[in-house]
């Protein structure tokens, strides 16, 4: 019993790499622990990409099934989380394509590499003092208005704290494009805040 308790507590101390080795060797609890570790961040990322709770759960499940089926192909030259986000990124983009969620914004850019602003209409007039929770709602709503290709980068950078290099690996974009698109996305968000009457950024 004591030995069992030790095994139980130690699986949480194992690194992702050790869990993967265990899972590939047929240890069921290795994969389960990986799912437990990453299910929330992946679901949140996918949810913010798609904006729909049910689809986010479905796509997350799809992501982990894909992970399970390709675990033996995972190469430790990548960070596991980067590899996982790449699968989640592809699954979210696929889902958008299948469901034709503004497909033109996934990749299509204007000739100068910029996107059209998509401002939500009928916003209430701005107030001066807003609570932080209102701020958060506002930021969430602005993120939703971003074209998916920009939203993706903002979520990976600010929601998941990925470095530019990791974002480049996840999205398959060149590093320069990542940097440039993040810059444009943030400028676009700040413009949207100004449109909504927020100043100070």
């Amino acid at each position, binding site marked *: 019993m004591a030995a069992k308790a030790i095994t139980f507590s130690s699986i949480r101390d194992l690194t992702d790499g050790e869990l993967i080795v265990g*899972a*590939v060797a*047929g240890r*069921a609890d290795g*994969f*389960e622990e990986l*799912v*437990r570790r990453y*299910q*929330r*961040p992946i*679901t*949140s990322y996918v*949810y*913010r990409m798609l904006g729909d*709770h049910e689809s*986010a*759960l479905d796509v*997350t*499940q799809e992501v*982990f*099934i894909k*992970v*399970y*089926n390709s*675990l*033996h192909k995972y190469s430790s030259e990548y960070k596991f989380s980067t590899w996982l986000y790449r699968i989640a990124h592809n699954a979210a983009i696929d889902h958008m394509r299948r469901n034709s969620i503004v497909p033109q914004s996934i990749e299509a850019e204007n000739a100068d590499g910029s996107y059209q602003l998509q401002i939500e209409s009928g916003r209430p007039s701005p107030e001066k003092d807003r609570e932080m929770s209102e*701020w*958060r709602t506002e*930021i*969430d709503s602005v*993120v939703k208005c971003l074209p998916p290709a920009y939203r993706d980068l*903002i*979520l990976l*950078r*600010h*929601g998941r*704290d990925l*470095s*530019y290099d990791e974002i480049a690996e996840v999205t398959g974009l060149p590093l320069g494009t990542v*940097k*440039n698109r*993040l*810059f444009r996305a*943030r400028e676009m*968000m*700040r413009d949207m805040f100004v449109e909504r009457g927020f100043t*100070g*950024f």
Partner: protein
Amino acid sequence: MDTLRQNCPFEDIAAYVDGELTLERELEVETHFSACAECYSELNDQKAFLRALDQTLRQGDLELPADFTKVVVANAESSVAGLRRSQERYHALFICIGLSLFVLFALGSQAENVVDQASAVASFFARFIYSFFIGVAIIIRNVASQSQFGASTVVFLTVIFAALALFVSRRVSSMRDA
């Protein structure tokens, strides 16, 4: 003033806040900050803005259904391709053959010694293979008599068909693995 603005490293300010500039570029940008009040104020705005983004987007992880992990793991494990590599399939085949041999030995256990048991199993296999080929020969002869082809053509077509089926199934499984 406009020419100065054009030289301002706006795109690099956010990257600077993100800590993503090379050391050399970082020093250049810092020198610029000390000379350009506008960029310095832009830097502060960017910091506040990026902090607000971090705080908002790192919070609010979704509530998951209580059994979500279990459901995901169960679904993943039931997806057939799974972690099973081709090597494992050979292992499975090996075990199956071993088990069936054991069963055959058990069937022949009335024999008094191991040699008799082995010969019983061997004669069973021999009869099995003999019957199999007799069966195939009968089928081929019947098919050939029904069609305008000769028996050898039917055998040839069957072999081609089997090879094609094997090839297609391998292609499909390699595409699925990719």
